[in-house]
């Protein structure tokens, strides 16, 4: 997948990958190539230091240590991987068990895992090594089992996050058994973080194994791994330091390779949230180019899909300080893509282009100004679950941005998190801050996400369907919260919603989008009765009321909005519009502003007076 491949595009990722490939290649090839050299006993050259002939010196029997270190790569890596495999399998089983056996038994498993997690890993490994007996097999089991609790905990957290998703409930309600659900719906959705963590912990296992062998609890002669070589070499560290240094260096390099690669993977596969990426370093206001009093000024914004089709086709809009602007339009009209493009969150392979994209007077298309987004723009998504990393506590996710670009100390950032959680009305914020995202209800997650936006001092909040996933009363509370924040700090709001009623209640002005374009821009108060565009009028008419005739089908807009791939040349609403004529089908109407500040794109708009008469 492209996200996995993008690891290689970061310098750290590329280096780590190179290092890892090197280590693995060595593990495969070294014993084949150099076993003979490594085992050759030479009694004339015992315990020598470094020399041109023996780069890392020789051991008690005069064997070349450089080659022995190379050859030991295989055993060291093999055993570390084996131990990691055991940790993963046991951890996965323990972690997934609660989901399989039902809640009562599950609680015992969770408690068991919690106890074992609290036990220091290396101590556990030592203890187990003694139980399983001295030797490679015992050590593998010991390190594997010692690593399992951490994995079990991670799996539990991840599974808990996925299992509450509706698609899991839907599958179970469709009669799919728990085990099948686990295999088909849960594991694939938690595979990425698990793989990443397994890679990182393989590095840990490598170190731990070296430790056990070093203590004489691991690999036994005549076999040898790095730990064993290290132990043997340490006796003569003052005479021939290379004998201990060479395996030591090998352990560090290989350990680093796994660790760094794992970290790079984590970055690449989105264990950083889209929000994480939206929060670049260093807050600074940069009023460089043409000053404008608009908070946000967008001109001719276009988003191109990989197919070459344009999902957003030349959107222009302005938001004044403190203004609340709503965006309505049917599903797929490009509302979300517009919002994401403004926040610079649209990713490859989608392409964003704009004639002008200014936020607080700074050009967002210039790389240097994007940092503004981190502190001055708050983004609230429909789906708060995917915006949070399921494996991290709420506090550290909120603090991340503030510590990185606010330069706050750990304590200061923490205090700010708790203060912000309180500001978004989360009860008992000290306790809540320590919890994981799945321990929050939907409404609380949405509050936490707003709180994350408030870690800085936003001038604009972009909220994309912030309440759609929430039920009604919670919806009211979130809208109320947004209104309060706006009133308190004169923050502007761009509220995207499919819900015409919500938008007209909350916003000052409404943009109506259709097939990637703004077709009407009008005061919210005019929406119900004063709309002039046929599409807007149809949209409003489709809302059922207590007076709708129950015998008749509801008024709907016949047909469907064209997908970005097949928008036609003329007005894209033409196939569904009662007023359409040949002109409409042939030529696209431009979005024209009128004297009263309203804008409309239609060849035959309802006259303003007529619209009023009908009301």
């Amino acid at each position, binding site marked *: 997948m492209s996200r996995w491949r993008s690891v290689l595009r970061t310098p750290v990722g590329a280096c780590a990958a190179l290092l890892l490939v090197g280590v693995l290649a060595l593990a495969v090839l070294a014993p084949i190539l150099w076993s003979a050299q490594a085992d050759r006993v030479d009694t004339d050259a015992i315990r020598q230091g470094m020399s041109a002939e023996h780069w890392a010196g020789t051991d008690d029997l005069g064997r070349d240590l450089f080659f022995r270190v190379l050859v030991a790569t295989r055993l060291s890596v093999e055993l570390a991987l084996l131990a990691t495999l055991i940790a993963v399998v046991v951890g996965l089983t323990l972690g997934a068990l609660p989901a399989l056996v039902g809640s009562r038994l599950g609680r015992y498993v969770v408690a068991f895992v919690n106890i074992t997690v609290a036990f220091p890993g290396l101590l556990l490994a030592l203890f187990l090594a003694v139980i399983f007996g001295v030797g490679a097999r015992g050590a593998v089991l010991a390190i594997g089992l010692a690593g399992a609790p951490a994995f079990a905990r991670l799996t539990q957290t991840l599974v808990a996050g996925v299992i509450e998703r509706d698609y899991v*409930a839907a599958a179970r309600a469709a009669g799919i058994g728990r085990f099948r659900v686990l295999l088909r719906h849960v594991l694939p959705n938690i595979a990425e973080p698990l793989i990443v963590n397994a890679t990182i912990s393989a590095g840990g296992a490598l170190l731990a194994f070296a430790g056990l062998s070093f203590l004489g609890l691991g690999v036994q002669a005549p076999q040898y791994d790095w730990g064993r070589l290290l132990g043997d070499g340490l006796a003569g560290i003052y005479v021939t330091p290379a004998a201990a240094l060479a395996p030591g260096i090998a352990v560090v390099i290989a350990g680093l390779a796994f660790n760094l690669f794992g970290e790079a993977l984590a970055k690449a596969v989105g264990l950083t949230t889209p929000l994480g990426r939206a929060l670049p370093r260093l807050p600074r206001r940069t009023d460089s180019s043409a000053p404008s009093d608009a908070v946000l000024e967008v001109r001719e914004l276009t988003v191109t899909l990989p197919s070459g089709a344009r999902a957003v086709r030349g959107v222009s809009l302005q938001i004044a300080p403190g203004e609340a602007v709503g965006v309505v339009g049917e599903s797929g009209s490009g509302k979300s893509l517009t919002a994401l493009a403004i926040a610079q969150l649209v990713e490859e392979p989608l392409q964003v282009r704009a004639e002008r994209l200014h936020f607080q007077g700074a050009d967002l298309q210039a790389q240097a100004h994007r940092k503004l987004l981190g502190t001055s723009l708050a983004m609230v998504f429909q789906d708060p679950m995917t915006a949070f990393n399921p494996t991290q506590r709420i506090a550290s996710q909120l603090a991340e941005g503030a510590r990185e670009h606010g330069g706050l100390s750990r304590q200061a950032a923490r205090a700010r998190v708790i203060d912000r959680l309180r500001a978004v009305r989360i009860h008992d914020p000290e306790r809540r801050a320590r919890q994981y995202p799945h321990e929050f209800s939907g409404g609380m997650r949405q509050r936490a996400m707003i709180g994350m936006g408030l870690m800085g001092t936003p001038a604009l909040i972009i909220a994309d369907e912030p309440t759609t996933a929430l039920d009604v009363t919670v919806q009211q509370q979130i809208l109320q919260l947004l209104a309060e924040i706006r009133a308190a700090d004169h923050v502007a709001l761009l509220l995207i919603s499919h819900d015409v009623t919500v938008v007209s209640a909350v916003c000052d002005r409404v943009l109506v989008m259709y097939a990637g374009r703004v077709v009407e821009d009008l005061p919210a108060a005019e929406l119900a009765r004063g709309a002039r565009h046929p599409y807007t009028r149809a949209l409003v008419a489709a809302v059922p009321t207590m007076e709708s005739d129950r015998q008749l089908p509801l008024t709907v807009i016949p047909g469907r909005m064209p997908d970005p791939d097949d928008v036609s040349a003329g007005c894209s609403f033409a196939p569904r519009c009662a007023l359409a004529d040949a002109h409409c089908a042939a030529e696209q109407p431009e979005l024209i502003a009128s004297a009263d500040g309203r804008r409309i794109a239609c060849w035959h708009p309802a006259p303003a007076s007529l619209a009023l008469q009908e009301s």
Partner: protein
Amino acid sequence: MLRFDQVTIRYGSRIAVDNVSLTVPDGEIVGLVGESGSGKSTLARAGVGLVAPTSGQVLLGDRPVGLRSPVQLVFQDPYSALDPRMTIGQSIAEPMPRASRADRRAEVSRLLELVDLDPSRAMQYPAQLSGGQRQRVALARALAGQPEVIIADEITSALDVSVQGTVLNLIRDLQAQLGLSMLFISHNLAVVRYVATQVAVMHHGRIVEHGPAPEVLGNPQHDYTRELLASLTT
């Protein structure tokens, strides 16, 4: 016929559903309204066997409802409703009865058409669909299970008004054509009024009022129902 018989559901010490008796007769749509946290979703989950009642029982015909009963649930949140790793087609085919590959594919196409999506979308992943499009997929998936009863939990709350209209019309059509029975949960009285023949009002875990839709909405007896109707006009 789906029947909740004196169902009580507790979470720890909290009572989510309190001694509810409610029947969804064959071929009828029963609307269930009430504020958030009043226990509507819990009742919905009990209706498909995802939650076991603490006391009382849920019956389909004369048999207790279990996870394999032909009752399907459609959820509110279109983002959480579909497995991001499965294609639209795979998701819809999951609850289908066993059939040949070609039959399944044909059925997936038919269902996509039914919910007003281009059948070529079957190969796409949820990430490529907008929220409203996903919800229509969720509805198609529920229909794929050939249910006797569908429980719809706020299914139009996340939909565009234009699509909401088509979905509501679709639901009425399906009911007329297939004699579909449905428990239709919504906070939106105007929506419930439009599709339901009966309306039940839930408040603090209890059904406080229940009867034919025109009666309940036209001449509400309980204070809470009056409050709901009043809040609508403001």
